[in-house]
């Protein structure tokens, strides 16, 4: 089942504290390992390398000694309102789940037209320009042994993206069924990046559940919370937090920071 409109009920989302993020990249590595990502022969080709969770380096553009640097991890925003990628996909290879609101991708149905890649303003969608496995032709056995059996590797010519570790949601549902639980507890379903972050900058859970950390953070830190390109109206389910105004200004074009203020 899929829907284009806002999610009601359970709504999975993420809150990332940019003041805590050190830019170490553990979240990216954890994501690639968990989701069977692969490395290109030339990983310096950043416009073709596949990083579902990309860490951007932000700079305030001020000269020394006012220079400031921050890091912004960018998973798929799992847009809640009419995700730009969902309605454009001709063979319905991407949908937004009615329960939970996760924007999923079905690589085996994707025809590789890349309309979704063009429509996404966050560059969260990646096309497989290369055949993944021949790159490891000398180490196929080791590589396949290291794969996560819960996640299907993608083939050349299809689009892929962050799924909020959807396979973990499936596993959590099975566990709850086995244990006779009606509701998925917060710690039963966490994304790999959330668990891997050494600084604890990433929180994940049901945005509508008052018992979940993400819900509480959005309430407690209301004035520090923002989303990327909010005026577009995509209603991302990934929130960012910062107390620094210059970082906040970097998230939207229309916000200005006075020059020379050291922000």
């Amino acid at each position, binding site marked *: 089942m899929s829907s284009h409109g806002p999610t009601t009920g359970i709504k999975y989302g993420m809150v990332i504290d940019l003041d805590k993020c050190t830019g170490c990249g553990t979240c990216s590595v954890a994501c690639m390992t968990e989701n069977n990502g692969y490395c290109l022969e030339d990983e310096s080709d950043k416009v073709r390398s596949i990083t579902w969770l990309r860490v951007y380096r932000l700079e305030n553009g001020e000269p020394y000694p006012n220079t400031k640097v921050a890091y912004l991890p960018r998973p798929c925003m799992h847009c809640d309102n009419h995700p730009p990628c969902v309605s454009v996909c001709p*063979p319905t290879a991407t949908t937004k789940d009615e329960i939970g609101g996760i924007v999923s991708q079905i690589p085996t149905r994707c025809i*590789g037209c890349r309309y979704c890649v063009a429509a996404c303003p966050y560059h969260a969608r990646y096309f497989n320009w290369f055949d993944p496995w021949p790159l490891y032709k000398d180490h196929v056995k080791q590589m396949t042994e290291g794969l996560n059996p819960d996640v299907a590797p993608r083939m050349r010519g299809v689009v892929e993206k962050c799924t909020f570790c959807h396979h973990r949601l499936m596993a959590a549902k099975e566990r709850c069924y086995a244990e006779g639980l009606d509701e998925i507890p917060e710690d039963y379903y966490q994304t790999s990046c959330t668990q891997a972050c050494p600084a604890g900058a990433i929180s994940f859970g049901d945005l509508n559940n008052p018992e979940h950390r993400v819900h509480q953070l959005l309430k407690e830190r209301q004035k520090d919370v923002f989303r990327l390109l909010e005026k577009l109206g995509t209603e991302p389910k990934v929130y960012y937090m910062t107390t620094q105004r210059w970082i906040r200004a970097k998230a939207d074009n229309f916000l200005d920071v006075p020059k020379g203020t050291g922000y």
Partner: protein
Amino acid sequence: MESEFIPEGLQRTSATSFYLWQLPWLGLLAWGGISALLCLIVGLNQTNMNDYFAFGVWIVFDLSVIALGAGAFFTGFLTYVVGKKELKSIINLAVIIGFICYSGAVAMLGIDIGQPIRGWFIFWHANVHSMLTEVSFCITCYLMVLTIEYLPNILENRQLDKIKEIHFFSHNLHEIMFVFAATGTFLSFFHQGSLGGMYGVMYARPYAAREMFSIWPTTFPLFILSAMAAGPCFTLIIATMLEKIGRKKLVKKEAKELLAKISGRLLLVYIILKIIDTWYWGTVTAAEAGFSVSDFFREGPYGWWTVIFELGFLGVIPAILLNIPAVRHSTGALMFAAVLNCAGIVLNRFVVTVVTLAIPVMPFEKFLGYLPTWQEWGIAMAVIGYGGIVIGLSYRYLPVFPHEKELNAG
């Protein structure tokens, strides 16, 4: 032997000279064939497209040839549905150009998608919300219509026409052509519009996004209008080129002038609406998304010049020229205006495709450039090679221009 296939009473060059003329086109086809094989076997890493430039020169070419091939549906509509009989002088050529453009575009799309074997998923798992689904359905259906429209002309070949059954079949097909012309017009309205709609609905890419009327963005009617304005001009350019190469008259002057006049009127309406649309987009639509036009042009080679060049030099000027009777009467001036008109539409398709993708949306993203590889050019050029061969063969062996004999009698 070969000369027995040439329409009776028409002068054509010798077989040797004709086939030598085909060599450059075959060269382009070979270049395209090698490129296509590389893309299909090795993958789309043979191109310079990437996750920022998800679409490249192929989509620009696709959109352009589909707009330029619109002469087929619009001339068909004017000839068979509106009843402008003088256009019968050029309708066959318009249909052939349309057929080349559409079949070429479909072939290019087959290479462009990452999983060509799954192309049928668009029809099987159709997402009715996607503009691209509608484009795929309409283009496929319209290509069938174009084949049916082209068929009677093929069957009129001197040798084929001798077979009684074929003669009757093609005659009857002619009689009911208005049905196919009307179907073609209906289908073309939707896919030309949907091609524009594809970009207008990308509401999260503010450079392309436009205001919506119900489910259609303003780019929907604008693409239909611009294709209707440019398509007939492209047919006129090809007809004039054939006349120059063959050194004879092929199309009646009144047919050319009528087509140019209708094209000019439509271009004028289009350019007025496009200017209003651009102004509204710059002042309202983009502003509501948190952008100003200067944000779009803050870095990179694109800027106001693209807007001025597209709307002014390649828009307003041909629109004025084509509405002046003296310009339409002079072959040189008419060709100049027609070329500007067609170039304007190609630039428009380039802007909506490449400039849209080149402009960063996130404030911390940088402008990135893109230049196609030889493989990408090869596939694009193959469409031109294929077009040259189909037009050449049709001109030689089929009675494409019904008034050719009469016009060159003296």
